């Protein structure tokens, strides 16, 4: 006869959970049934039935006892009792339970969101296959001269020569950022800014996966382009663009040779388009070639061979630059390799690093600290409410002890309850997070693409967090409660002890210290943001529109544009040139007779440039159509440049700009903030550019009808440049873009600060609810003896108000100290006004009173007879 075997795992599972006393008979019965079912209905049915029976056997009457090693042995019955009592307690005090769960839940949600963000930030540039061997060449002029710069770029021949001469270097890749590129497919044309030229081995260093195309050859031919899927969709719709062509700047036809799997996200490189470096040509008017070592505008990345340390290359670089860069002069910069992992967070002060994305490590850690503080506030709520409620459970503790519970049993019980509550709040937090994720990220303006896999990273952290927070916040109340003397408790002698009160006070003070600290910080951060928005930048940032026009016959079209635009009464001034957006070249400026130049920033502008941007001219004049020679020799400098050159009188002095422009200073403008307010004002020269200009700049009068004006400008545009897209920006928007990270931080700190306040307020509400019930008799008697509602109100809230004031005294100097550190990264910062402290004190008192008042007034107004009879 054929035999049937019981399903292995189910049998093992049964053997594991079954009480040994019953195992033999039950296993026997199961097997007998299995065999009978097998004979009657076949093996599939029989085995299915077996599984079903095993699952149904998983019940208390069959389970074996759970044993922990001594001294905590919990029998099943005790566990049942603990569960029952725990849930009864939760149910009995719904307010405290929900405050605990909501508070912890919100704390966990903030921690989740912040961890996700921090994780994302720390992941940047970590996913490339060879990433640990990739370095960027940087050079530091600062050790050599005072006005030196720290640059992340080198000349164009650097990479190929390095790869050729250094056996340690496996591959070297140049990256050239470019902007204001017009792309045109059959139907679509747009301006694009995230366009980079890269050498053919780009994917070797940065292994972005390609959805289509071959990473080895995609960028090796001239006129090849690789697109992100978004751009492929934008220009080619749903069709595959592979092999199709796309026009760049009406000049070059590029062939699509690859599509990325997804847009670059977790990397400092910022691009939508990759163009093969072979396509790159020197822009019109640049006095350089691709062999110019001095054209310091190329990000150069190298892939070192396995086992090579960057230090060995650093040492050899000194000799390398002596031979190539500084052939006939002394070496004036130290070259070294910067690890790829340092690029995202470590390029803040470096010149030309503005072309790629940046992280801010202090913001990242600041956020982590905020997450920790919020969890702390939520944990303190939990501790406070548990200790305050402990009196209610004093009898239970007494009875348990009399029956024979050891202290460790009680501690285990209370800690277990706390863990259960914190588990519930984690589940609540996950639900909340899942529901609020999209709007929250939108509000915080985060481009996080959250994937469900990310939960896998978060869940272990959450589990750990649940345990740590649960145990930490439970251990004190557990020790306290388990220490009750049974005799006293059962006689009803227990009162809230002095130490317990003190600890509670300390916790409330700490909570409010954190909260007030966060309030002050967020107030100051937003004050600084406000300061940035309103600071006099030395030019008038309102009402300036720039229109992008990328074309070789810019000047002819500009003349026509000037004619057309000036017919609008709202248009006050018209010029052309660079917009102020924090992104400028830096060139050597050599006064007549001097040997060595001084590095200064360089902007290009056309006639009426200063008056259009609203720069204040201190001496001399603006570029003017009445002096056509200005386009060749006119130079305007700022005050800092005048100081750097050591001139008392600047007008008429001769200067050489970037070795190709020789001219005279015709004007000095007042210092203006062309960099962001993070950086001090540096020397700057303005000339009429020798290259093509890219922007028409209009100053308009304040108007309520901006839409109409824009519409009529666009109508004019159709005559000026019907072949080019109409694309305009406002100057103040361009400027604000420099503060994106700061604004993000500002939003975050106010959001999480608000959350912390809410959680702390919630805790105070719960605390006062419990405390006022303990004092209900006292209040009743006081009222009978003639106390007014106001007296009672003051009596109950006085202590808390004092605590909040103490918290203010601790928090204000601390917060000031922290925030000053943050402010220091701005060269121009708001002054800390004392009114800020008044506001912080008022807000914290307001929150405290708001959370107290409802319960306190309710208690104070209650009928004293009921209170005194209450038992």
């Amino acid at each position, binding site marked *: 006869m054929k035999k049937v075997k019981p399903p292995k795992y189910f049998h093992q599972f049964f053997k594991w959970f079954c009480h040994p006393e019953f195992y033999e008979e039950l296993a026997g*019965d199961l*097997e007998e049934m299995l065999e009978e079912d097998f004979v009657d209905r076949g093996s599939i049915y029989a085995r299915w039935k077996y599984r079903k029976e095993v699952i*149904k056997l998983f019940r208390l*009457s069959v389970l074996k006892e759970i044993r922990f090693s001594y001294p905590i042995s919990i029998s099943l019955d005790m566990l049942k009792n603990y569960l029952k009592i725990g849930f009864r307690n939760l149910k009995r005090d719904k307010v405290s339970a929900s405050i605990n769960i909501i508070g912890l839940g919100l704390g966990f949600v903030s921690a989740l969101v912040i961890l996700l963000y921090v994780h994302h930030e720390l992941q940047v540039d970590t996913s490339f296959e060879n990433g640990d061997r990739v370095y960027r060449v940087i050079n530091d002029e600062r050790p050599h001269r005072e006005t030196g710069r720290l640059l992340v770029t080198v000349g164009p021949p650097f990479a190929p020569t390095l790869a050729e001469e250094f056996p340690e270097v496996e591959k070297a890749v140049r990256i050239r950022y470019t902007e204001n590129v017009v792309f045109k497919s059959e139907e679509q044309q747009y301006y694009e800014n995230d366009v980079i030229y890269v050498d053919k081995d780009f994917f070797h260093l940065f292994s972005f996966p390609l959805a289509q195309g071959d990473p080895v050859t995609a960028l090796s031919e001239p006129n090849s382009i690789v697109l992100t899927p978004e751009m492929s969709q934008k220009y080619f719709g749903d069709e595959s663009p592979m092999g199709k062509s796309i026009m760049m700047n009406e000049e070059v036809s590029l062939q699509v040779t690859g599509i990325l799997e997804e847009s670059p996200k977790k990397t400092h490189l910022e691009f939508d388009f990759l163009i093969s470096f072979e396509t790159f040509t020197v822009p019109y008017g640049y006095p350089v070639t691709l062999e110019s070592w001095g054209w310091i505008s190329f990000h150069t990345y190298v892939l070192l061979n396995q086992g090579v340390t960057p230090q060995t290359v650093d040492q050899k670089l000194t000799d390398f630059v002596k031979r190539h860069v500084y052939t006939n002069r002394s070496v004036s910069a130290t070259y070294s390799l910067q690890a790829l992992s340092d690029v995202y967070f470590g390029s803040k002060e470096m010149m030309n690093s503005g072309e790629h994305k940046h992280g801010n490590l202090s913001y990242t850690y600041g956020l982590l600290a905020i997450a920790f503080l919020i969890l702390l506030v939520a944990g303190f709520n939990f501790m406070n409410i548990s200790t305050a409620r402990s009196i209610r459970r004093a009898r239970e503790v007494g009875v348990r002890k009399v029956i024979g519970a050891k202290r460790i049993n009680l501690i285990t019980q209370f800690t277990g309850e706390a863990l259960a509550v914190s588990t519930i709040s984690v589940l609540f937090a996950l639900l909340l997070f899942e529901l609020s994720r999209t709007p929250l990220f939108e509000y915080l303006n985060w481009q996080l693409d959250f994937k469900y896999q990310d939960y896998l990273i978060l869940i272990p952290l959450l589990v750990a967090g649940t345990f740590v927070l649960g145990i930490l916040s439970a251990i004190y109340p557990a020790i306290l409660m388990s220490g009750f003397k049974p005799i006293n408790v059962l006689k009803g002698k227990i009162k809230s002890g002095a130490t317990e009160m003190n600890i509670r006070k300390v916790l409330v003070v700490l909570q409010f210290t954190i909260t007030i600290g966060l309030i002050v910080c967020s107030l100051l951060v937003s004050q600084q943001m406000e300061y940035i928005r309103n600071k006099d930048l030395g030019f008038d940032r309102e009402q300036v529109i720039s229109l992008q026009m990328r074309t070789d016959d810019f000047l002819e079209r500009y003349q026509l544009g000037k004619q057309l635009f000036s017919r609008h009464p709202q248009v006050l001034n018209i010029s052309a040139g660079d917009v102020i957006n924090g992104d400028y070249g830096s060139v050597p400026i050599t006064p007549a007779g001097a040997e060595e130049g001084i590095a200064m920033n360089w902007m290009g502008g056309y006639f009426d440039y200063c008056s259009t941007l609203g720069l204040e001219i201190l001496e001399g004049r603006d570029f003017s159509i009445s002096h056509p020679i200005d386009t060749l020799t006119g130079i305007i400098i700022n005050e800092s440049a005048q100081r750097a050159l050591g001139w008392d009188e600047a007008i008429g002095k001769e200067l050489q700009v970037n070795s190709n422009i020789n001219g005279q200073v015709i004007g000095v403008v007042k210092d203006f903030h062309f960099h962001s307010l993070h950086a001090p004002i540096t020397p700057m020269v303005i000339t009429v550019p020798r290259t093509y200009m890219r922007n028409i700049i209009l100053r308009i009068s304040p108007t309520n009808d901006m839409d109409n004006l824009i519409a009529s400008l666009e109508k004019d545009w159709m005559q000026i440049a019907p072949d080019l897209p109409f694309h305009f920006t406002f100057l103040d928007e361009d400027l604000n873009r420099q503060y994106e990270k700061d604004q993000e931080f500002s939003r975050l700190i106010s959001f999480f600060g608000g959350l912390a306040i809410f959680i702390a307020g919630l805790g105070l509400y719960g605390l006062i609810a419990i405390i006022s019930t303990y004092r209900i008799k006292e209040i009743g008697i006081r009222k009978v003896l003639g106390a007014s509602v106001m007296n009672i109100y003051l009596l109950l809230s006085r202590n808390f108000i004092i605590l909040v004031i103490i918290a203010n005294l601790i928090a204000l100097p601390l917060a000031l100290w922290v925030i000053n550190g943050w402010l220091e990264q701005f060269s121009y910062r708001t002054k800390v006004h004392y009114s800020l402290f008044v506001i912080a004190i008022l807000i914290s008192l307001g929150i405290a009173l708001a959370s107290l008042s409802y319960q306190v007034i309710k208690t104070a107004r209650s009928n004293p007879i009921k209170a005194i009879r209450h038992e």
Partner: protein
Amino acid sequence: MENNYLGEFQEIVMLTILVLEDNAYGVTIKKELKKRLNRDCSRGALHTALTRLQKKGLISSEMGGANATRGGRRKRYYTVTNTGKLSLKEAKESRDQLWKAIPNFSLKMV
């Protein structure tokens, strides 16, 4: 008295044990319930009922001899104790009393 209270299922199980005489163990009880009353119960549910009855002292059990058909495992045979029989009788009597007290016409189908 709570101790003597017999659940309906427990009563049926005890009666089934009596029906099976000296062959009452898990599988046979389960099969008998299915055969006579067309009532399905899981082995787990039966186990709960049996342990409770045993705890109340209404049935007793002992392990039988080994048998090759069930992987060599022994069976636990159940018998109804005298207390058990008594409480079954009591249960029946109290029901009979109620039956007798019903006026005849009440049972006519309307």
